[in-house]
């Protein structure tokens, strides 16, 4: 079941300059697992809730498959929604929680008791909580509660599955375990799934595609590889993975730090100032290089098998961090020759449009 959000606009109530969602469009393919990633306030949760029908946009539409669901109530949309704080019914047992969606159906569409029971047990098995039917939420751990919440959402055979920061309330180890478990469940059930997270590791690990949101807009949608290796905007580059930005000049299609030309091709023939985003692994120590840049080491720290050095790029370009094997013994104050292997350049004033330079 494909999900399509088209031109969603949602404004804050009250006087503010910026809308919560500013004309956002997104497509989730049938059976895909898509992550909505972004910082707080980016609008990702609002988008999810609008898809679910828990909120209505000021303009725009939501389609499930070919059907326009924009005017439908949340009950009519048949979505499975998993909340960050589980939202389990505290006064019901685990089994009753899971069966809830089936029990509230009206007489015609409600399955017989035996069938409800069978499905409940089947789902309990799927989420690996067999034996806990009679417990109440208060007696479960956080991870168990979230699994009950998922089972409950799946019980109604939803068309799509929506999860709002599903692991946000859990601690790190449980979170990691549940991540891989969710991936397995998704492969098993094949539901079209969209989940919201602010944790990029989670998004990159789990999702087929990631939509990066910022300030009510989608900055980029792509596979984890695309997002990481080919960020389309400065925000995405800065948000995903580690990166530093250097001030560089673009002259006639070539990038310069001061007078030093960087061996990175730039696509267009424009000129101007801009920023070059590099990750620690994009800069190498240039032992024999003729055309290398001298950078001063500012600080060094040991991280496991490598050393991480913060170095100062001349011409007030900025500071970057680089990694090197622990064998090389840096000291602050020394200068080392460096070479740029990769980088992504954005001309000042350009957001999503930028020349992605670098050989990959």
């Amino acid at each position, binding site marked *: 079941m494909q999900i399509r959000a088209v031109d969603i606009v949602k404004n804050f109530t009250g006087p503010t300059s910026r809308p919560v969602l500013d004309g956002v469009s997104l497509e989730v393919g049938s059976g895909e697992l898509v992550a909505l990633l972004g910082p707080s306030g980016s609008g990702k949760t609002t988008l999810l809730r609008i898809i*679910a*029908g*828990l909120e209505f946009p000021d303009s725009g539409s939501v389609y499930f498959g070919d059907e326009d669901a924009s005017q439908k*109530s*949340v*009950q009519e949309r*048949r*979505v*499975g*929604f998993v*909340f960050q*704080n589980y*939202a*389990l*019914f*505290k*006064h019901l047992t685990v089994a009753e929680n899971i069966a*809830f*969606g089936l029990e*509230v*159906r009206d007489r015609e569409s409600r399955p017989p008791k035996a069938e409800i029971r069978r499905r409940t047990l089947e789902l309990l098995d799927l989420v690996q909580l067999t034996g806990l039917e009679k417990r*109440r*939420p*208060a007696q479960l751990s956080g991870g168990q509660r979230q699994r009950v*919440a998922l089972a*409950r*959402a799946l*019980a*109604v055979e939803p068309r799509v599955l929506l999860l709002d920061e599903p692991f946000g309330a859990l601690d790190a180890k449980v979170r990691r375990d549940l991540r891989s478990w969710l991936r397995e469940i998704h492969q098993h059930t094949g539901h079209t799934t969209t989940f919201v997270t602010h944790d990029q590791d989670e998004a990159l690990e789990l999702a087929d595609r990631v939509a990066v949101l910022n300030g009510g807009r989608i900055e980029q949608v792509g596979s984890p590889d695309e997002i990481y290796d080919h960020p389309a905007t400065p925000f995405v580059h800065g948000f995903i993975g580690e990166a530093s930005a250097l001030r560089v000049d673009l002259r006639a299609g070539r990038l310069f730090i001061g007078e030093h030309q960087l061996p990175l091709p730039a696509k267009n023939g424009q000129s101007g100032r801009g920023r070059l985003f590099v990750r620690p692994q994009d800069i190498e120590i240039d032992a024999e290089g003729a055309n290398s840049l001298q950078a001063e080491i500012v600080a060094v720290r040991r991280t496991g098998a490598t050393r991480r050095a913060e170095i100062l790029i001349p011409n007030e370009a900025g500071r970057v961090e680089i990694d090197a094997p622990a064998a090389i013994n840096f000291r602050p104050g020394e200068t080392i020759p460096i070479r740029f292997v990769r980088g992504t350049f954005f001309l000042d004033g350009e957001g999503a449009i930028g020349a992605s330079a670098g050989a990959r």
Partner: protein
Amino acid sequence: MSLAIRRNSVLPGFGLTLGYTLVYLGVIVLLPLAVLILRASSLGASGLWHIATEPRIFAALKTSFSLALAAAAINVVFGGVVAWVLSRYEFPGRRLLDASVDLPFALPTAVAGISLAAIYAPNGLIGSLIAPLGWKIAYTPLGIVVALVFIGLPFIVRTVQPVIAELELDVEEASATLGATRLQTLGRVVLPTLTPALLTGFALAFARGVGEYGSVIFIAGNLPFVSEIAPLLIVVKLEQFDYAGATAIATLMLAASFLILLTINLIQAWSRRRFGHV
């Protein structure tokens, strides 16, 4: 017992303040109550039972308890609605109405009593409206119920309001995503969560209603066997110097109060176990 050892604070004044507190409580509360209990026990259990089953006394007790029960039940329904409306909706005058819920607490019972009597008497505001239909409220058990509803309302509303405030909204949203209509959500998800508070409020209103005097005696007919409440009978007995009778009734009412308190505690303990909260 050395108080000095048990005290684990460097603050001074423990002995003085605790001593004063105990003396005050002892003189004002414990001593008089002890006398009551002594007096009651001198009657013996069978003596108490004998008195309690005297026709007039038994009727008064029955009246007090059953009418208090009815009023508390009415209050659960309407008080629940009031609590919900005050908590969940915004409308002009809401603040004022919210403050007015405390009126039965603040208004002296005698004032409430004569006012209610004036309204529901046959020539009163409402009494005159229903008289043509042949109905009477004042001077009948119905009037007592009206007075007890007035008195008991804040107990329900103020007990339930905080619980409504604490309701997690995502639970209601979850219910909606699972396909439940709003009515189903209210019935299957919200109401069960409010039940302990409703029960507690009910018990409180009931307990207060059983012992209420001032607001009731003006609107009640005070006819023995029909609309005479137990507290009034205590006063009557006292005027007749029937201390034994008065003591017996008072003891039974006290016993009932403690039973109700115990029930409230049990409700809260049960609720903690079942829901993980009160």
